[in-house]
């Protein structure tokens, strides 16, 4: 599959974006990429517990769309949407602690990678692995906004793969018929794990699903951060004005495999290289900023440097973070009782903790 046409004319700057905001968009995309690069290093040092999922080449989708939200709007990210969480105020330190399973991570080590949220203050919500489920959940979040007449909007991401789930279907249909202020962003990065989009769905465009739910549907260039921002803001403000749900298909490309372990042998030769060289969202935006927008290169270099310093500190802090407290495993299943009972056989032990090498060790000598 060929890359889409490369450079968008920067003439199409959305009105109302200040100089500082243009720089902020750059900052968040760069921060996303740089943070993931740090994670790759940590992963190679076996300091990441579990898999590492990247959004390399897709940073504009997450950052551009989340940038269209207000502080009070609620975001539901998926695994490729680290950038959107950073826009919403998630910190690199939180992300690093999550990936390293630290006891002071946002989920206290219960959940992995970027499966975390903060609905109290920063208005983003922790995803689960089961694809599609966040769509009905966000239909309900935004139903609450409509019922209470709050001028707030929700935004939920799904991948091309996740559009095949029944949960996606039931959720977007519910939002549509209930006129919930919800924007559903379908991030079409051409693959679901190893499965190309054309084996996921026979539709010409995933945006064509919108008509079946009676909501507006558009397709946009997800590697153009400003176009992404523009189409998302349109949908967000329509939702805020009472215009109900809509669907946006963002065209992009997953350059780094499903997760770090994925060798991507199923990708046709040359495809990755073509996208990297001709359609990198940060390259494209950098060119627009330093070109049409006349931002001097040193301004951007200063941003890069700021990110480097920020991440140095975050990595050091995360590495110094304590591991989880074992006994915490029992806390917080319910509001009441606050702690699950310690089972009898563990209570028999002097100390609660198991021995050094857990798991069914002998399996190796079957």
């Amino acid at each position: 599959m060929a890359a889409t046409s490369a450079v968008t004319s920067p003439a199409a700057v959305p009105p109302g974006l200040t100089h500082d905001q243009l720089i902020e968009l750059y900052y968040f995309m760069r921060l996303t990429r740089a943070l993931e690069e740090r994670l790759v290093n940590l992963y190679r040092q076996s300091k990441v517990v579990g898999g590492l999922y990247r959004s390399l080449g897709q940073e504009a989708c997450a950052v551009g769309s989340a940038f269209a939200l207000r502080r009070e709007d609620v975001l539901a990210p998926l695994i490729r949407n680290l950038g959107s969480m950073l826009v919403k105020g998630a910190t690199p330190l939180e992300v690093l602690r999550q990936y390293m399973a630290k006891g002071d991570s946002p989920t206290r080590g219960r959940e992995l990678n970027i499966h975390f949220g903060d609905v109290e203050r920063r208005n983003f919500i922790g995803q689960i692995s089961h694809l599609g489920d966040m769509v009905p959940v966000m239909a309900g979040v935004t139903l609450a906004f409509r019922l209470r007449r709050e001028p707030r909007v929700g935004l939920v991401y799904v991948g091309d793969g996740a559009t095949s789930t029944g949960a996606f279907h039931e959720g977007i249909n519910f939002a549509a018929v209930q006129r919930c202020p919800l924007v559903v962003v379908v991030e079409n990065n051409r693959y679901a794990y190893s499965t190309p989009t054309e084996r996921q769905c026979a539709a010409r465009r995933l945006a064509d699903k919108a008509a079946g739910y009676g909501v507006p549907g558009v397709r946009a260039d997800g590697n153009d951060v400003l176009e992404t921002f523009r189409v998302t803001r349109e949908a967000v403000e329509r939702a805020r004005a009472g215009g109900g749900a809509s669907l946006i298909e963002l065209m992009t490309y997953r350059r780094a495999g499903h997760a770090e372990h994925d060798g991507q042998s199923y990708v046709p030769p040359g495809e990755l290289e073509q996208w990297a060289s001709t359609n990198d969202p940060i390259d494209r935006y950098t060119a627009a900023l330093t070109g049409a927008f006349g931002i001097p290169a040193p301004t951007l270099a200063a941003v890069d440097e700021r990110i480097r310093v920020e991440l140095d500190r975050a990595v050091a802090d995360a590495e110094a973070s304590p591991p989880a407290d074992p006994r915490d495993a029992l806390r917080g299943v319910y509001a009441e009782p606050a702690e699950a009972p310690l089972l009898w056989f563990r209570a028999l032990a002097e100390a609660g903790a198991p021995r050094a090498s857990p798991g069914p060790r002998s399996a190796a000598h079957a």
Partner: protein
Amino acid sequence: MPEITYVEAVREALVEEMERDPAVFCMGEDIGAYGGAFKATDGLLARFGPGRVIDTPVSETGFVGAAAGAAHMGLRPVCEMQFMDFVSCAYSILTNYVATARYRAGLACPMVVRGPAGGYVRGGPFHSQNPEAAFLHTPGLKIACPATPSDAKGLLKAAIRDEDCVLFFEHKYLYRRARGAVPPGDHVVPLGRARLAREGRDLSIVTYAAGVWMALDAAERLERENGLSVEVLDLRTLLPLDDAAVVETVRRTNRVLVVHEDTATGGVAGEITARINELAFEWLDAPVRRVTAHDVPLPYAPALEDFALPQTDDIVRAARWLAAY
């Protein structure tokens, strides 16, 4: 105290909780103008308006998921399954998203999923199910199974006020057949506490929902025909289980029959048997035995349904056997 039916008790609980707390609202298929397949929500639309009584598309995952989202935002949704047989369609989002929300993400998810369960009504394999056992295995959920109008009302009120997700199994055989007094005022029955439905000395029947009525019938016959004094413990909630009440009845009678309408293998009785083993083995004078449905999908024809399901006669026979053990 005035007598009301079980389904009226459900409706009263809904109305009172919606009056009390503006965050409470209902969602489900045909619950608005139609008032629900069993009329449990009859009159609610007129009283509370379409913003609090929402007819949904045929999308159990959709509206259960939406309930979770609304709950995160501070609302208290009550979802109706038209039949509890369809809660299977929301199985994944309930067990994976809802049940784990607090634990994995500190997300409050106060919501109720309620609806008619149970057989003895010639509903066939898809309108008679007792799917409680499928959820017993999911930490993060609570499960209530009231047997009486009083408990239907009191437990539903507790469920709506609970900070976590409660699956609320109403028994459709009992909807209009069970009629009884309900304490006046704000009658709340706490989750997790069993009810001693009948005291006895010789043998205990531990049960819930429709099983309670058969157990009481059986107890009466056993008393009359065999002079046996049979205790009946109505569990009322399965998650959390009232271990203390179970242990107490075992200690008193030393013989236990666990009765439920659901099929035997993998049913709730297994868990209860295990707990009795763990907590009161030394008090047992006989094995814990189960009276349950046979391990088949529930068939529709009366002769078949009656054969497949446990009956009062079965309890009587089993109890005599156990008493003589």
